[in-house]
Protein backbone atom coordinates (compact mmCIF):
# COMPACT_ATOMS: atom_id res chain seq x y z
CA UNK A 1 0.00 0.00 0.00
CA UNK A 2 1.44 3.34 -0.94
CA UNK A 3 -0.02 6.82 -0.93
CA UNK A 4 1.94 8.29 -3.81
CA UNK A 5 0.20 9.55 -6.92
CA UNK A 6 2.82 10.56 -9.47
CA UNK A 7 6.06 12.42 -10.17
CA UNK A 8 5.82 16.14 -10.74
CA UNK A 9 8.38 18.63 -12.04
CA UNK A 10 9.25 21.18 -9.36
CA UNK A 11 9.89 23.79 -12.01
CA UNK A 12 7.17 23.52 -14.66
CA UNK A 13 4.63 21.21 -13.00
CA UNK A 14 4.69 18.56 -15.74
CA UNK A 15 3.52 15.19 -14.37
CA UNK A 16 4.85 11.69 -14.97
CA UNK A 17 3.91 8.21 -13.76
CA UNK A 18 5.83 6.67 -10.88
CA UNK A 19 9.02 5.32 -12.48
CA UNK A 20 12.82 5.65 -12.12
CA UNK A 21 12.79 9.08 -13.70
CA UNK A 22 14.49 12.08 -12.13
CA UNK A 23 14.55 14.78 -14.78
CA UNK A 24 11.68 16.62 -16.45
CA UNK A 25 11.68 15.97 -20.18
CA UNK A 26 10.45 19.48 -20.84
CA UNK A 27 12.64 21.75 -18.73
CA UNK A 28 15.24 19.42 -17.11
CA UNK A 29 13.91 20.42 -13.70
CA UNK A 30 13.98 17.93 -10.82
CA UNK A 31 10.98 15.65 -10.29
CA UNK A 32 9.31 15.20 -6.93
CA UNK A 33 6.97 12.50 -5.64
CA UNK A 34 3.43 13.69 -4.91
CA UNK A 35 1.17 12.20 -2.23
CA UNK A 36 -2.53 11.84 -1.59
CA UNK A 37 -2.49 13.71 1.72
CA UNK A 38 -6.22 13.31 2.26
CA UNK A 39 -5.90 9.52 2.27
CA UNK A 40 -2.85 9.69 4.50
CA UNK A 41 -4.67 11.95 6.96
CA UNK A 42 -7.42 9.35 7.19
CA UNK A 43 -4.99 6.49 7.66
CA UNK A 44 -2.65 7.66 10.42
CA UNK A 45 -2.60 9.16 13.88
CA UNK A 46 -0.05 9.84 16.59
CA UNK A 47 -1.03 6.71 18.50
CA UNK A 48 -0.74 4.47 15.44
CA UNK A 49 2.76 5.78 14.80
CA UNK A 50 3.81 5.60 18.44
CA UNK A 51 3.03 1.88 18.59
CA UNK A 52 5.34 1.05 15.69
CA UNK A 53 8.97 -0.12 16.01
CA UNK A 54 11.67 2.48 16.54
CA UNK A 55 12.84 2.95 12.96
CA UNK A 56 12.10 5.35 10.12
CA UNK A 57 9.41 3.10 8.64
CA UNK A 58 7.04 4.22 11.37
CA UNK A 59 6.30 7.09 8.96
CA UNK A 60 5.69 4.74 6.03
CA UNK A 61 2.53 6.44 4.77
CA UNK A 62 4.61 9.55 4.06
CA UNK A 63 7.30 7.58 2.22
CA UNK A 64 7.19 6.71 -1.49
CA UNK A 65 7.19 2.91 -1.22
CA UNK A 66 4.72 0.08 -1.18
CA UNK A 67 5.50 -0.92 2.40
CA UNK A 68 5.99 -4.61 3.06
CA UNK A 69 7.80 -5.38 6.30
CA UNK A 70 9.41 -8.51 4.84
CA UNK A 71 10.76 -6.66 1.81
CA UNK A 72 11.92 -3.41 3.30
CA UNK A 73 15.63 -2.52 3.02
CA UNK A 74 17.12 -0.90 6.12
CA UNK A 75 14.63 -2.23 8.67
CA UNK A 76 16.54 -0.67 11.56
CA UNK A 77 17.50 2.65 10.05
CA UNK A 78 16.40 5.92 11.59
CA UNK A 79 14.81 6.85 14.92
CA UNK A 80 18.17 8.00 16.23
CA UNK A 81 18.42 9.76 19.59
CA UNK A 82 17.36 13.36 20.12
CA UNK A 83 19.48 14.53 23.04
CA UNK A 84 18.77 17.47 25.30
CA UNK A 85 22.23 19.00 25.72
CA UNK A 86 22.57 20.84 29.01
CA UNK A 87 26.37 21.15 29.13
CA UNK A 88 26.69 22.25 25.50
CA UNK A 89 23.66 24.47 25.94
CA UNK A 90 25.36 26.19 28.86
CA UNK A 91 28.39 26.93 26.64
CA UNK A 92 26.12 28.48 24.01
CA UNK A 93 23.76 30.17 26.43
CA UNK A 94 20.84 28.03 25.27
CA UNK A 95 18.39 26.37 27.67
CA UNK A 96 16.70 24.11 25.13
CA UNK A 97 19.44 22.87 22.85
CA UNK A 98 19.02 19.46 21.26
CA UNK A 99 21.29 17.37 19.11
CA UNK A 100 19.65 14.98 16.62
CA UNK A 101 22.28 12.29 16.64
CA UNK A 102 22.61 10.45 13.33
CA UNK A 103 26.18 9.44 14.27
CA UNK A 104 24.58 6.19 15.45
CA UNK A 105 22.23 5.54 12.54
CA UNK A 106 22.01 1.88 11.59
CA UNK A 107 23.89 0.33 9.88
CA UNK A 108 26.52 2.82 8.64
CA UNK A 109 26.50 5.64 11.20
CA UNK A 110 25.29 8.56 9.09
CA UNK A 111 22.09 10.24 7.93
CA UNK A 112 22.61 8.54 4.56
CA UNK A 113 21.10 5.35 5.95
CA UNK A 114 17.74 7.15 5.70
CA UNK A 115 17.81 8.09 2.04
CA UNK A 116 19.48 4.83 1.03
CA UNK A 117 17.06 2.51 2.80
CA UNK A 118 14.14 4.26 1.07
CA UNK A 119 15.72 4.40 -2.39
CA UNK A 120 17.00 0.82 -2.40
CA UNK A 121 13.61 -0.42 -1.19
CA UNK A 122 12.12 1.41 -4.19
CA UNK A 123 14.84 0.15 -6.58
CA UNK A 124 13.95 -3.40 -5.63
CA UNK A 125 10.27 -2.61 -6.14
CA UNK A 126 11.12 -1.44 -9.66
CA UNK A 127 13.00 -4.67 -10.33
CA UNK A 128 16.57 -3.33 -10.44
CA UNK A 129 19.30 -5.85 -9.65
CA UNK A 130 22.25 -3.43 -9.57
CA UNK A 131 22.43 -0.34 -7.39
CA UNK A 132 25.04 2.36 -7.59
CA UNK A 133 25.99 5.85 -6.55
CA UNK A 134 28.49 8.67 -6.94
CA UNK A 135 29.87 9.24 -3.49
CA UNK A 136 32.70 10.56 -1.40
CA UNK A 137 31.96 8.35 1.48
CA UNK A 138 28.88 8.24 3.67
CA UNK A 139 26.56 7.52 0.76
CA UNK A 140 28.92 4.88 -0.60
CA UNK A 141 29.11 2.92 2.66
CA UNK A 142 25.36 3.14 3.11
CA UNK A 143 24.61 1.93 -0.42
CA UNK A 144 27.17 -0.87 -0.16
CA UNK A 145 25.84 -2.07 3.20
CA UNK A 146 22.15 -1.96 2.31
CA UNK A 147 22.80 -3.56 -1.10
CA UNK A 148 24.67 -6.40 0.58
CA UNK A 149 21.80 -7.18 2.94
CA UNK A 150 19.31 -6.93 0.07
CA UNK A 151 21.40 -9.25 -2.12
CA UNK A 152 21.87 -6.68 -4.89
CA UNK A 153 24.93 -6.01 -7.07
CA UNK A 154 26.65 -2.75 -6.20
CA UNK A 155 29.05 -0.34 -7.96
CA UNK A 156 30.38 2.74 -6.18
CA UNK A 157 32.06 5.67 -7.95
CA UNK A 158 34.37 7.89 -5.91
CA UNK A 159 36.66 10.85 -6.60
CA UNK A 160 40.32 10.62 -5.57
CA UNK A 161 41.30 11.51 -2.01
CA UNK A 162 38.50 9.95 0.00
CA UNK A 163 39.43 9.03 3.62
CA UNK A 164 40.68 5.46 4.08
CA UNK A 165 37.92 4.50 6.48
CA UNK A 166 35.31 5.41 3.92
CA UNK A 167 36.93 3.47 1.05
CA UNK A 168 37.32 0.29 3.10
CA UNK A 169 33.86 1.01 4.43
CA UNK A 170 32.46 0.28 0.97
CA UNK A 171 34.66 -2.51 -0.36
CA UNK A 172 34.18 -4.56 2.81
CA UNK A 173 30.53 -5.12 1.88
CA UNK A 174 31.46 -6.59 -1.49
CA UNK A 175 30.72 -3.47 -3.55
CA UNK A 176 32.96 -2.75 -6.56
CA UNK A 177 34.55 0.66 -6.01
CA UNK A 178 35.74 2.67 -9.03
CA UNK A 179 37.95 5.71 -8.30
CA UNK A 180 37.69 8.58 -10.79
CA UNK A 181 40.48 11.09 -11.42
CA UNK A 182 38.62 14.28 -10.60
CA UNK A 183 36.42 15.84 -7.92
CA UNK A 184 32.94 14.94 -6.75
CA UNK A 185 31.19 16.98 -9.43
CA UNK A 186 33.22 15.21 -12.14
CA UNK A 187 32.13 11.88 -10.69
CA UNK A 188 28.47 12.92 -10.68
CA UNK A 189 28.61 13.97 -14.29
CA UNK A 190 30.10 10.63 -15.34
CA UNK A 191 27.52 8.75 -13.30
CA UNK A 192 24.65 10.59 -14.99
CA UNK A 193 26.02 9.28 -18.24
CA UNK A 194 26.53 5.75 -16.91
CA UNK A 195 23.02 5.69 -15.41
CA UNK A 196 21.65 6.58 -18.84
CA UNK A 197 23.60 3.86 -20.56
CA UNK A 198 23.75 0.87 -18.20
CA UNK A 199 20.26 0.80 -16.67
CA UNK A 200 21.44 0.67 -13.06
CA UNK A 201 19.66 2.21 -10.09
CA UNK A 202 21.84 5.17 -9.11
CA UNK A 203 20.23 6.03 -5.81
CA UNK A 204 21.05 9.74 -6.02
CA UNK A 205 20.47 10.10 -9.75
CA UNK A 206 17.69 8.14 -11.45
CA UNK A 207 16.15 7.14 -8.12
CA UNK A 208 16.62 10.63 -6.72
CA UNK A 209 12.95 11.62 -6.22
CA UNK A 210 12.51 8.55 -3.98
CA UNK A 211 15.93 8.92 -2.36
CA UNK A 212 15.32 12.47 -1.22
CA UNK A 213 12.03 11.54 0.45
CA UNK A 214 13.98 9.48 2.98
CA UNK A 215 15.47 12.70 4.36
CA UNK A 216 12.04 13.76 5.61
CA UNK A 217 12.25 11.11 8.31
CA UNK A 218 14.92 13.21 10.06
CA UNK A 219 12.34 15.95 10.44
CA UNK A 220 9.44 13.63 11.38
CA UNK A 221 11.53 12.15 14.17
CA UNK A 222 12.62 15.53 15.55
CA UNK A 223 8.99 16.60 15.80
CA UNK A 224 7.82 13.35 17.36
CA UNK A 225 10.72 13.24 19.82
CA UNK A 226 10.06 16.81 20.92
CA UNK A 227 6.55 15.64 21.82
CA UNK A 228 4.86 16.25 18.49
CA UNK A 229 5.93 19.85 18.18
CA UNK A 230 8.26 21.82 15.96
CA UNK A 231 11.50 23.39 17.19
CA UNK A 232 11.91 27.17 16.96
CA UNK A 233 15.14 26.64 15.07
CA UNK A 234 16.85 23.80 13.29
CA UNK A 235 20.38 24.11 11.89
CA UNK A 236 21.20 21.74 9.04
CA UNK A 237 24.35 21.16 6.93
CA UNK A 238 24.06 21.81 3.21
CA UNK A 239 25.98 19.79 0.64
CA UNK A 240 23.98 18.83 -2.47
CA UNK A 241 20.92 20.45 -0.92
CA UNK A 242 18.81 17.37 -0.20
CA UNK A 243 18.25 17.33 3.53
CA UNK A 244 17.36 20.93 4.39
CA UNK A 245 14.38 21.37 2.04
CA UNK A 246 13.09 17.92 2.98
CA UNK A 247 13.15 18.67 6.70
CA UNK A 248 11.11 21.79 5.95
CA UNK A 249 8.76 19.66 3.84
CA UNK A 250 8.49 17.09 6.64
CA UNK A 251 7.43 19.75 9.16
CA UNK A 252 4.81 21.04 6.71
CA UNK A 253 3.54 17.54 5.93
CA UNK A 254 3.01 16.82 9.62
CA UNK A 255 0.54 19.70 9.67
CA UNK A 256 -0.96 18.69 6.32
CA UNK A 257 -1.87 15.24 7.63
CA UNK A 258 -3.00 16.45 11.05
CA UNK A 259 -0.20 15.03 13.20
CA UNK A 260 0.70 18.55 14.32
CA UNK A 261 -1.81 21.35 14.59
CA UNK A 262 0.38 24.44 14.50
CA UNK A 263 3.83 25.86 15.02
CA UNK A 264 6.40 27.80 13.06
CA UNK A 265 10.07 27.04 12.62
CA UNK A 266 13.17 28.69 11.23
CA UNK A 267 15.51 26.47 9.26
CA UNK A 268 19.15 27.53 8.88
CA UNK A 269 21.83 26.29 6.50
CA UNK A 270 25.43 25.53 7.46
CA UNK A 271 28.27 25.14 4.99
CA UNK A 272 32.04 24.88 5.21
CA UNK A 273 33.74 28.15 4.31
CA UNK A 274 35.75 26.32 1.66
CA UNK A 275 32.62 25.09 -0.13
CA UNK A 276 29.77 27.50 0.42
CA UNK A 277 28.07 28.33 -2.86
CA UNK A 278 24.63 28.38 -1.25
CA UNK A 279 25.62 30.63 1.66
CA UNK A 280 27.32 33.06 -0.74
CA UNK A 281 24.04 33.34 -2.67
CA UNK A 282 22.05 33.64 0.57
CA UNK A 283 24.21 36.49 1.87
CA UNK A 284 24.09 38.25 -1.51
CA UNK A 285 20.26 37.99 -1.52
CA UNK A 286 20.28 36.33 -4.93
CA UNK A 287 18.79 33.16 -6.43
CA UNK A 288 21.74 32.55 -8.66
CA UNK A 289 24.18 30.03 -7.25
CA UNK A 290 27.69 30.28 -8.66
CA UNK A 291 29.56 26.96 -8.46
CA UNK A 292 32.82 26.85 -6.50
CA UNK A 293 35.79 24.47 -6.40
CA UNK A 294 35.63 22.98 -2.89
CA UNK A 295 38.57 23.17 -0.48
CA UNK A 296 37.77 22.09 3.08
CA UNK A 297 38.35 19.29 5.58
CA UNK A 298 34.59 18.80 5.59
CA UNK A 299 34.84 16.51 2.60
CA UNK A 300 31.42 14.98 3.08
CA UNK A 301 29.74 18.32 2.38
CA UNK A 302 32.20 19.59 -0.23
CA UNK A 303 29.89 19.86 -3.23
CA UNK A 304 30.76 22.82 -5.41
CA UNK A 305 27.68 22.61 -7.62
CA UNK A 306 24.69 21.64 -5.46
CA UNK A 307 21.76 20.44 -7.55
CA UNK A 308 19.17 21.45 -4.96
CA UNK A 309 20.88 24.64 -3.81
CA UNK A 310 18.03 26.70 -5.19
CA UNK A 311 15.54 24.80 -3.01
CA UNK A 312 17.73 25.29 0.06
CA UNK A 313 17.61 29.05 -0.47
CA UNK A 314 13.86 28.92 -0.90
CA UNK A 315 13.26 26.81 2.23
CA UNK A 316 15.56 29.01 4.32
CA UNK A 317 14.00 32.26 3.13
CA UNK A 318 10.41 31.01 3.36
CA UNK A 319 10.97 30.13 7.02
CA UNK A 320 12.77 33.37 7.89
CA UNK A 321 15.95 31.43 8.55
CA UNK A 322 19.54 32.29 7.75
CA UNK A 323 22.85 30.52 7.27
CA UNK A 324 26.57 30.92 7.65
CA UNK A 325 29.91 29.27 7.08
CA UNK A 326 32.48 27.67 9.34
CA UNK A 327 36.23 27.73 8.64
CA UNK A 328 38.24 24.53 9.02
CA UNK A 329 39.64 25.58 12.46
CA UNK A 330 36.11 26.51 13.61
CA UNK A 331 34.89 23.10 12.46
CA UNK A 332 37.54 21.26 14.47
CA UNK A 333 36.88 23.38 17.56
CA UNK A 334 33.18 22.58 17.30
CA UNK A 335 33.86 18.84 16.95
CA UNK A 336 35.95 18.99 20.13
CA UNK A 337 33.38 21.09 21.96
CA UNK A 338 30.58 18.64 21.16
CA UNK A 339 32.71 15.67 22.16
CA UNK A 340 33.85 17.26 25.43
CA UNK A 341 30.49 18.55 26.58
CA UNK A 342 28.13 15.83 25.36
CA UNK A 343 30.21 12.79 24.47
CA UNK A 344 29.22 12.84 20.81
CA UNK A 345 31.98 12.49 18.21
CA UNK A 346 30.83 14.06 14.97
CA UNK A 347 32.53 14.15 11.59
CA UNK A 348 33.37 17.57 10.09
CA UNK A 349 29.86 18.05 8.69
CA UNK A 350 28.62 17.95 12.29
CA UNK A 351 31.33 20.34 13.43
CA UNK A 352 30.31 22.69 10.61
CA UNK A 353 26.68 22.69 11.72
CA UNK A 354 27.47 23.27 15.38
CA UNK A 355 29.97 26.03 14.57
CA UNK A 356 27.35 27.80 12.46
CA UNK A 357 24.73 27.38 15.22
CA UNK A 358 27.20 29.13 17.54
CA UNK A 359 27.47 32.02 15.07
CA UNK A 360 23.70 32.33 14.74
CA UNK A 361 23.43 32.58 18.53
CA UNK A 362 26.17 35.25 18.63
CA UNK A 363 24.38 37.14 15.85
CA UNK A 364 21.24 37.21 18.01
CA UNK A 365 19.26 35.19 15.46
CA UNK A 366 18.70 32.41 18.01
CA UNK A 367 17.47 33.49 21.46
CA UNK A 368 18.42 31.84 24.78
CA UNK A 369 14.94 30.51 25.56
CA UNK A 370 14.18 29.09 22.16
CA UNK A 371 14.16 25.39 21.26
CA UNK A 372 17.05 24.67 18.93
CA UNK A 373 17.95 21.44 17.16
CA UNK A 374 21.40 20.97 15.64
CA UNK A 375 21.56 18.24 12.99
CA UNK A 376 24.58 15.98 13.46
CA UNK A 377 24.69 13.82 10.37
CA UNK A 378 27.78 11.61 10.54
CA UNK A 379 30.14 9.82 12.89
CA UNK A 380 33.63 11.15 13.66
CA UNK A 381 35.18 7.69 13.81
CA UNK A 382 34.91 7.61 10.01
CA UNK A 383 37.02 10.75 9.57
CA UNK A 384 39.77 10.46 12.19
CA UNK A 385 42.29 12.09 9.85
CA UNK A 386 40.41 15.37 10.08
CA UNK A 387 40.97 15.84 13.82
CA UNK A 388 43.99 13.62 14.56
CA UNK A 389 46.53 16.43 14.38
CA UNK A 390 44.42 18.79 16.47
CA UNK A 391 44.13 16.51 19.48
CA UNK A 392 46.61 16.37 22.35
CA UNK A 393 48.81 13.31 22.28
CA UNK A 394 48.87 10.88 25.25
CA UNK A 395 51.62 11.19 27.91
CA UNK A 396 54.06 8.28 28.14
CA UNK A 397 55.69 7.14 31.38
CA UNK A 398 57.29 4.00 32.76
CA UNK A 399 55.21 1.64 34.92
CA UNK A 400 56.28 3.26 38.17
CA UNK A 401 53.98 4.92 40.66
CA UNK A 402 56.40 7.74 41.41
CA UNK A 403 56.63 8.54 37.70
CA UNK A 404 52.85 8.82 37.60
CA UNK A 405 52.91 10.98 40.74
CA UNK A 406 55.34 13.35 39.02
CA UNK A 407 53.26 13.40 35.82
CA UNK A 408 50.00 13.98 37.67
CA UNK A 409 51.63 16.81 39.55
CA UNK A 410 52.71 18.40 36.26
CA UNK A 411 49.32 17.88 34.66
CA UNK A 412 47.51 19.51 37.55
CA UNK A 413 50.24 22.06 38.28
CA UNK A 414 50.63 20.76 41.82
CA UNK A 415 47.15 22.02 42.86
CA UNK A 416 45.71 18.61 43.76
CA UNK A 417 46.89 15.71 45.92
CA UNK A 418 46.03 11.98 45.76
CA UNK A 419 42.67 11.21 47.36
CA UNK A 420 43.97 8.41 49.60
CA UNK A 421 47.31 7.51 51.12
CA UNK A 422 49.15 4.63 49.43
Amino acid sequence: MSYITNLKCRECGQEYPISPLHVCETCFGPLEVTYDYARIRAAISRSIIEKRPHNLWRYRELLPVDFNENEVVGPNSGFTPLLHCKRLGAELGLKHLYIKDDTVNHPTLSYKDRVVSVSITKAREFGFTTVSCASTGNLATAVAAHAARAGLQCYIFMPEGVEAGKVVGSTIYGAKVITIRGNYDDVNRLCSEIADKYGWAFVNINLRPFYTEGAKTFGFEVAEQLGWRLPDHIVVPTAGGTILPKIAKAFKELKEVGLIKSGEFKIHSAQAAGSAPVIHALHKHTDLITPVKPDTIAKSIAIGNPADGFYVLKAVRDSGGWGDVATDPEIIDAIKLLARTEGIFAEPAGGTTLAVALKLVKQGRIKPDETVVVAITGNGYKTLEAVASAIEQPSIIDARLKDFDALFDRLTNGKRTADSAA
Partner: protein
Amino acid sequence: MAVRVRVPTPLRRFTAGVDEVPADGGSIKAVIEDLERRHPGMRERLLDEKGDIRRFVNIYLNGDDIRFLDAINSKVKDGDDISIVPAIAGGR
Protein backbone atom coordinates in the same frame (compact mmCIF):
# COMPACT_ATOMS: atom_id res chain seq x y z
CA MET B 1 34.89 24.01 -35.56
CA ALA B 2 33.75 20.40 -35.73
CA VAL B 3 32.89 18.94 -32.35
CA ARG B 4 31.02 16.01 -30.81
CA VAL B 5 28.17 16.62 -28.42
CA ARG B 6 26.98 14.04 -25.87
CA VAL B 7 23.24 14.21 -25.52
CA PRO B 8 21.37 13.06 -22.37
CA THR B 9 18.34 10.75 -22.54
CA PRO B 10 15.67 13.51 -22.36
CA LEU B 11 17.08 15.13 -25.53
CA ARG B 12 17.51 12.01 -27.61
CA ARG B 13 14.00 12.29 -29.00
CA PHE B 14 15.42 15.14 -31.10
CA THR B 15 18.37 13.08 -32.31
CA ALA B 16 16.47 9.91 -33.25
CA GLY B 17 17.82 8.20 -30.15
CA VAL B 18 21.47 8.89 -30.92
CA ASP B 19 23.52 9.70 -27.78
CA GLU B 20 26.43 11.53 -29.42
CA VAL B 21 26.07 13.85 -32.42
CA PRO B 22 28.39 16.06 -34.49
CA ALA B 23 28.02 19.84 -34.53
CA ASP B 24 29.81 22.97 -35.72
CA GLY B 25 30.51 26.30 -34.07
CA GLY B 26 33.18 28.57 -32.65
CA SER B 27 31.44 28.99 -29.30
CA ILE B 28 28.94 27.10 -27.15
CA LYS B 29 26.28 29.57 -28.35
CA ALA B 30 27.11 28.79 -31.99
CA VAL B 31 27.12 25.05 -31.32
CA ILE B 32 23.64 25.28 -29.80
CA GLU B 33 22.40 27.14 -32.87
CA ASP B 34 23.89 24.44 -35.07
CA LEU B 35 22.28 21.70 -33.00
CA GLU B 36 18.95 23.46 -33.48
CA ARG B 37 19.47 23.50 -37.27
CA ARG B 38 20.23 19.78 -37.36
CA HIS B 39 17.76 18.73 -34.62
CA PRO B 40 14.89 21.22 -34.39
CA GLY B 41 13.52 21.62 -30.87
CA MET B 42 16.85 21.27 -29.01
CA ARG B 43 17.42 24.96 -28.45
CA GLU B 44 14.19 25.46 -26.51
CA ARG B 45 15.24 22.71 -24.06
CA LEU B 46 18.61 24.25 -23.47
CA LEU B 47 17.94 27.99 -23.50
CA ASP B 48 15.21 30.06 -21.89
CA GLU B 49 13.32 32.95 -23.56
CA LYS B 50 16.15 35.35 -22.79
CA GLY B 51 18.65 33.09 -24.54
CA ASP B 52 20.40 32.08 -21.28
CA ILE B 53 21.19 28.46 -20.48
CA ARG B 54 18.40 26.97 -18.37
CA ARG B 55 19.02 26.64 -14.64
CA PHE B 56 19.03 22.86 -14.63
CA VAL B 57 21.25 22.34 -17.65
CA ASN B 58 24.97 21.75 -17.15
CA ILE B 59 27.26 21.99 -20.16
CA TYR B 60 30.80 20.64 -19.99
CA LEU B 61 33.51 21.56 -22.48
CA ASN B 62 36.34 19.00 -22.40
CA GLY B 63 35.25 18.08 -18.89
CA ASP B 64 35.02 21.64 -17.54
CA ASP B 65 31.73 23.19 -16.47
CA ILE B 66 31.34 26.16 -18.82
CA ARG B 67 30.33 28.31 -15.85
CA PHE B 68 34.00 28.19 -14.89
CA LEU B 69 34.96 29.27 -18.41
CA ASP B 70 33.04 31.85 -20.41
CA ALA B 71 29.56 30.38 -20.01
CA ILE B 72 27.62 30.43 -23.27
CA ASN B 73 30.39 32.38 -24.99
CA SER B 74 33.08 29.81 -24.19
CA LYS B 75 35.29 29.29 -27.23
CA VAL B 76 35.13 25.94 -28.95
CA LYS B 77 37.79 24.41 -31.20
CA ASP B 78 38.07 21.42 -33.57
CA GLY B 79 37.83 18.08 -31.85
CA ASP B 80 36.40 19.49 -28.61
CA ASP B 81 34.19 17.28 -26.49
CA ILE B 82 30.92 18.78 -25.28
CA SER B 83 28.61 17.09 -22.80
CA ILE B 84 25.08 18.20 -21.91
CA VAL B 85 24.06 16.85 -18.50
CA PRO B 86 20.94 17.59 -16.45
CA ALA B 87 22.00 19.34 -13.25
CA ILE B 88 21.29 16.52 -10.89
CA ALA B 89 23.92 15.89 -8.31
CA GLY B 90 23.83 15.04 -4.71
CA GLY B 91 24.54 12.61 -1.96
CA ARG B 92 27.98 12.29 -0.55
